[in-house]
Structure formats: structure tokens, C-alpha cells
């Protein structure tokens, strides 16, 4: 999993970059807030970002606010790294849109645990998004069955989604789990028997 690391201070950035590599992540490093936002806007943007609080051009909380406004279907998981241990600052960071924070100098094991929590959250969101996609597709199909269906008034074939005409049982089988067992209803049985008797008079006996 790619993780964006945004920090203008080289010692801190090198440390986080290396720790992430040790833990099996792919760090993508930038040196200021504007660059961080650009990276998070990109099509293949990292799903998680570790943002320093104080950075040139845009602070970590400002990046968080801008990311919130982007309204991505799966927003990135944002961790603020700060030497501001004041509770009011932490509340401010979380209100800006960060999901978590760590204070400098951080405990390496704590940072790893928090990054792992982020990974689980991202994976859960991706799974939920996939399930929602499947549900939306199923709902679309159900809606289609409820909708207007063109049917031939003579042969009773129906026009399917692809524009081709197909037997009504083929159409229903394709869109549902229904299986058909063929038989005669009482009315059709009467008609069919009458026809057969007319053609082969001995058959009724």
C-alpha cells in the first residue's frame, strides 16, 4: 500500500520513509503541503497520508480540510504528525479532517500500530465500496425488472437490454435465479388436447 509522507524536515521524513519500508509499505515523499495535496488529488493517489503539522505553503490541517472538500468516494486516511501536544491543537487537527495523530518524538511501535489501524480502515472502506457497488448493480437489475418491458403481442418475445428479442423465459432466467419447468396450464391443456383430437381422432381414447 502506498503511503504519502509530507514533511519539510529531512530527519523526520527520512525516518518515517525508512520505517514504512521496514513495515512493508511504499512511501511516497513530498516536502510541503501543496505538494501533498497535489499527490492526494492524483488518479493513483496514496490511500493514506502522514502529514506534518507545520509545513511550507500549506499546513497539515489545511491539507486535511482541502482533502475533505474533495469528497472522494474513498477518502484517504490522514495521520497528523505534530510536536504540538496541546489537547486543543489535537482537537483542531481532528476537526480539520485528520483521522489520527501522533506527537513527535513518536514511539516507533506506536506509529506502526497507528499506521496498521489506518491500513485496516482503508481496506474496510475499499471492501464496503465494492459491496455497495455490487448492491447498486443488483438494485439496478431489480429496477429493470420492475420497469417497462417491450413484449411482442404475437410471439410474446421480449426486447432485452442489448436490444435483441428473446424468449420471455430466457430473459427472466438471465435476470433472476428463476428456473423454468415447462408444462401446460388447464386452459392450454384443453386447447392442445382439442387440436390433437382434431388432427388424430383416436388420440383421446
Amino acid at each position, binding site marked *: 500500500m502506498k503511503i504519502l509522507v509530507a514533511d*519539510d*524536515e*529531512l*530527519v*523526520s521524513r*527520512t*525516518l518515517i520513509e*525508512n520505517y514504512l519500508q*521496514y513495515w512493508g509499505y511504499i512511501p511516497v515523499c513530498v516536502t510541503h503541503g501543496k505538494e501533498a495535496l497535489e499527490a492526494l488529488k492524483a488518479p493513483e493517489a496514496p490511500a493514506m497520508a502522514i502529514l*506534518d503539522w*507545520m509545513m*511550507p505553503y500549506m499546513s497539515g490541517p489545511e491539507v486535511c480540510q482541502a482533502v475533505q472538500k474533495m469528497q472522494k468516494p474513498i477518502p484517504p486516511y490522514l495521520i497528523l504528525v505534530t*510536536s504540538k501536544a496541546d489537547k486543543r491543537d489535537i482537537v483542531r487537527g481532528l476537526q480539520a479532517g485528520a483521522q489520527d495523530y501522533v506527537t*513527535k*518524538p513518536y*514511539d*516507533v511501535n506506536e506509529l506502526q500500530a497507528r499506521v496498521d489501524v489506518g491500513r485496516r480502515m482503508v481496506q474496510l472502506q475499499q471492501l464496503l465500496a465494492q459491496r455497495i457497488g455490487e448492491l447498486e448493480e443488483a438494485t439496478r437489475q431489480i429496477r429493470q425488472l420492475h420497469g417497462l418491458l417491450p413484449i411482442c403481442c404475437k410471439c410474446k418475445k421480449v426486447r432485452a437490454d442489448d436490444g435483441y428479442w428473446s424468449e420471455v423465459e430466457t430473459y427472466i432466467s438471465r435476470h433472476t435465479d428463476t428456473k423454468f419447468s415447462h408444462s401446460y396450464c388447464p386452459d392450454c391443456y384443453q386447447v392442445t388436447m382439442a387440436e390433437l383430437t382434431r388432427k388424430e381422432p383416436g388420440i383421446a381414447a
Partner: protein
Amino acid sequence: MDAANPTLLDMSDLRGRFAGRADLLRRVIKIFDEQTPQLLARLRHAFRRGDAQTVEFTAHTLKGSFAQLGAQITAGLASQLEEAARVSAPGRSEAVLKELEAQASQVRRILNDLANSPDV
């Protein structure tokens, strides 16, 4: 040259955080050694010009790198400068800046000795 004060560095914290990662510790010490004089020069220059914003920002950066390398006392001095600049009074912190510069060179020496030692 005065002997560096070893209490400026929390060795147990440093060894704990870099256990089994001597290469990484040597690498960040090298980065720290290169960037710290530049940051201090920027800080001194901004201080002389009365540029509170640059003093605050640079002191904050120094605070972070000192703290990451176990130099909490020196990080505390950088924090004092940062706070003073935030309330737009960096000019009153000349003594703190001098002490920060003095401690920074000691911390660099201790860290360089550590990087050159075979039992990092």
C-alpha cells in the same frame, strides 16, 4: 574545544528507537549534521531581521529534528524560541538562541562520535 555534555542526549531512548537499525541511525545523523548549521544560520539571520514568522518556523523544524534524535533539552530551547516568536517577541530571546547554538554543536559532536563508534 570544550568536551560535549553527554547528558544532552538521551542515549537509552536513541538506542531503543534505533535498535537493530544502525545504518538508519548513521544516515539520519549525517543528515542532521548537514542540515543543522544551515537551519541555525537561517534562524540567526531571521532573528537579526526581526522576522518572527521565519524564527517560529525554523525553530519548530529544529525542535522536531533534535527531538527525533533524543536531544530533548536542546529541543526545549528551540521550543522556547518558537513560542517567543509566536507572540512576536523573538528579540528578547538572544540568550536562548546563543544557548541553542552552543548546545547544537555539542549535540552534533556527540552524535558524530556515536555514528563513528563501532557499537552503535
